[in-house]
């Protein structure tokens, strides 16, 4: 039986400790004497006073309140919650990687640098790009890097005035937020009836101020844009560049490459496509690849090889600067590198095919019970609408998702993309068996039945989770973001 857990502060007992430190074996001097003129803490930080067993039990119990890929199905659309092979974790945990200081002399990091260099090259081959930086820590961080690279390149050819970023209405929220962070204005173009970019709307948006088009392909509807080569030509002819948001790369990897579609810059999410774990919200990794003309602007350093030794190259005068301390989320690189080596070319392509097969199978079975607004083959994910249920009994997508929790599975991404009413974005990934998919279909079929026959059961869900629905309005109105000791 799962139970809520007290806060660690509420477990605290004065004088109890859970640490183990070596003896202070150098002569001790009064702190004030060592730090003349420095103001010292006069009361200790109110950290908990608990033993190691208290800590282990507390966090073990907390872990039991979570859903993860290791527990059951997690079809969160556009997040690619695939299984993360355990060997990846073991490799990243090797002493020679996990306990390597970033400023160790290059001679003492040759294996590490070789791994980074090879990963850069593998990603180039997979993406059809000429060079990669591994520095960005997440997809959104990669997007930011990409727009910075495009603007630096354009400034170098006298096109620095270009500051309009075109974004389809199906895009992730990070795309417009990224463009704004880099001082660009955004123009939204609508999708056509097939779910792709409306070419007329795109044509109308293209002018001499266009910096770039940011595109996710397959898009957030899970649909590949059949016109991608036409779109690329239109944008290039207008003097803009194309940015590929790799969030959905799991839908076409090995079949086509962003570089061959005409994209100039892209990021991959190693935590999606390359099977590194999501960690409860990070760390991820968002390496950025570019075509030749943008290479000089990549952030410093890049991992390179001079034929004898691997080294970090800081000597790149046109670089946009750094995006992150040191060299990026290296632990994540190791997991992705392990994955690529384990899969090989055939395995990666097969993963894409299985992801697409799983998604189309789920879509074909679920469209019997739920509205499918764009009815054509999808790639790795698809979007249903809860509109039939809403019209029938007022049961909304949120209710359907909460009811799914009662069956032990994670719901899809809700209310996104914005262009679909009551959206449910479902991405099964390639690592799920047909049995799991069938179990999920049976659950959604049952919830559809309930929505008609016992709508209140769905509207009141979840019933079996450790907490019920939360009062988010109260949380917003009067934020309580920390515990405080009473008195």
């Amino acid at each position, binding site marked *: 039986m799962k139970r809520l857990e007290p806060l660690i502060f509420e477990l605290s007992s004065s004088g109890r400790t859970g640490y183990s430190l070596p003896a202070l074996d150098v002569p001790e001097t009064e702190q004030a004497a060592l730090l003349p003129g420095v103001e010292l803490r006069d009361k200790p930080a109110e950290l908990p006073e608990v033993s190691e067993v208290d800590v282990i039990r507390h966090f073990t119990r907390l*872990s039991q309140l979570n859903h993860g890929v290791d527990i059951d199905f997690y079809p969160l659309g556009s997040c690619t919650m695939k299984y993360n092979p355990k060997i990846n*974790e073991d490799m990243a945990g090797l002493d020679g990687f996990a306990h390597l200081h970033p400023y160790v002399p290059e001679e003492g990091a040759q294996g590490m640098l070789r791994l980074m260099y090879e990963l850069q090259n593998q990603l180039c081959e997979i993406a059809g790009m000429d060079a990669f930086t591994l520095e960005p820590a997440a997809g959104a961080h990669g997007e930011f890097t990409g727009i910075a690279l495009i603007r630096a390149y354009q400034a170098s050819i006298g096109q620095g005035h270009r500051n309009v970023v075109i974004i389809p209405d199906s895009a992730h929220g990070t795309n417009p937020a990224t463009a704004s962070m880099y001082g660009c204005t955004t123009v939204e173009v609508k999708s056509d009836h097939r779910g792709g970019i409306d070419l007329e709307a795109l044509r109308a948006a293209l002018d001499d101020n266009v910096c770039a088009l940011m595109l996710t392909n397959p898009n957030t509807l899970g649909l590949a844009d059949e016109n991608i080569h036409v779109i690329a030509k239109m944008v290039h002819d207008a003097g803009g560049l194309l940015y590929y948001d790799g969030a959905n790369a799991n839908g076409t990897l090995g079949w086509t490459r962003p570089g061959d579609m005409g994209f100039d810059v892209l990021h991959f999410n190693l935590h999606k496509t390359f099977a590194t774990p999501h960690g409860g919200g*990070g760390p991820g990794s968002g390496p950025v690849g570019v075509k030749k003309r943008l290479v000089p602007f990549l952030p410093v350093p890049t991992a390179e090889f001079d034929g004898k030794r691997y080294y970090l190259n800081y000597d790149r005068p046109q670089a946009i600067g750094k995006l992150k301390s040191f060299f990026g989320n290296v632990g994540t690189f190791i997991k992705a590198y392990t994955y690529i080596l384990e899969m090989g070319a055939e395995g990666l392509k097969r993963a894409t095919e299985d992801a697409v097969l799983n998604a189309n199978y789920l879509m074909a079975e679920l469209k019997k019970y739920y509205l499918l607004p764009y009815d054509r083959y999808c790639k790795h994910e698809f979007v249903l609408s809860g509109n039939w249920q809403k019209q029938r009994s007022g049961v909304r997508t949120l209710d359907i998702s909460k009811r799914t929790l009662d069956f032990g599975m994670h719901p899809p991404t809700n209310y996104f993309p914005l262009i679909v009413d009551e959206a449910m974005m479902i991405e099964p990934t390639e690592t799920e068996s047909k049995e799991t998919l069938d179990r999920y279909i049976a659950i959604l079929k049952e919830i559809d039945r309930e929505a008609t026959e016992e709508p209140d059961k769905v509207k009141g869900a979840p019933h079996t989770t450790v907490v019920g629905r939360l009062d988010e309005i109260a949380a917003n109105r009067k934020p309580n973001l920390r515990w405080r000791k009473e008195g």
Partner: protein
Amino acid sequence: MLAAIGAKSIEELFADIAESTRLNRALDLPAPMSESELRRYIGSLAAGNWHVGDYTCFMGGGAYDHYIPAAIKHVFSRGEFYTAYTPYQPEVSQGTLQSIYEYQTMIAELTGMDVSNASMYDGATSTAEAIVLSVITNKRTHVVMSHGLHPDIRSVCGTYTHGQGVTIDEAPVTAEGTTDLEKLAELVTDKTSCVIVGYPNFFGTIEQLAEIAKIAQAKGAIFVVHAHPIALGILKPPGELGAEIVVGEGQPLGVPLSFGGPYLGYFACLEKFQRRIAGRLSGMTTDTRGQRAFVLTLATREQHIRREKATSNICSNQALCALMACVYMSLMGKEGIREVANQCLQKAHYAQKQIAALPGFEPVFTGPFFNEFAFRTPKPPAMIQAALAERKILGALDVGRLYPEYQGVASFAVTEKRTKAEIDDLVAALEVVSK
């Protein structure tokens, strides 16, 4: 499955990929390896690296070899934590949400701030986000930053804010190793959005926060401090010395060195900024059954709602690293965090004194330091570094590679992990290798 779909082949499902963009060949990648082959091959890449389990580490410069309690790995290796994602469904994410809430509380306690977010990519990006928060708060676009902040932090802040028209001036460092307050006061004007210094800075020196706060406040600028979290075990928290935003690199709090990442940036501030803070926040609320529970909150700041008007494009934190830090701070507790900080201080001062007695080693700065210090060396730092490595010691970080004006300067960091014997070995080795 194909029959249920109504497709004849897998290929049919890919018909929408335009022929001209298809990759009609296999990717050119190495042949797949089995687990045992992977272990052998990747193990060989790891084996040659000079890691701190095998070498005695006196290197710092933003990443520190603190002891990582065994319990941490056992917690973060639980699949329930590391195979979850951002807690969008709070009913099945209370583990992540509550641990973030606890983390936020501990960071706020340590820094003397009201609130903390759920963490950011690293200390450098947290600092850049502090600039963004300052700029949107007071609508000023000029920033004054100490030259004593790590070069990576300064570079990241430049890259991050370049597109928003922010200009950054750097205040120089004096012979004491601290920010030149006179120059700082000249640079800060009523157009300055924020003032940022390290506590301690890259050289290990401890800045006079109260003085700097006065300079910032006199012009209405926001005072931002980048602090080493372990130092806050004994130093007065920046919040009590006039800081309004405190950020820093959370790696020392139980996160493996991992060649520079993943780490976590912590970000704490006064309550008045909480509705503009970037990144995720976990808040306490109640559920339909009247129970206390936690949820991601103040989401209207964020990109998935605000899109181009969001405070930041961030849609993740470094949750797993924040969990490591949370477990670390829980284990160390009220007393342990003080003791670990004191040991760093005592051992670093012991080491500095011994090295200062060696011929040819001159301390570069005279100001008070925490666990890191710099020396002008009798031979080039790179040469000393290599000679130490032969003795399985990592040290003598070549400061000149990061600060061109400090050629011939090496820095050393000492953590609680180092023993007196190891420090004495370092000193003996330095004496030999610099002859």
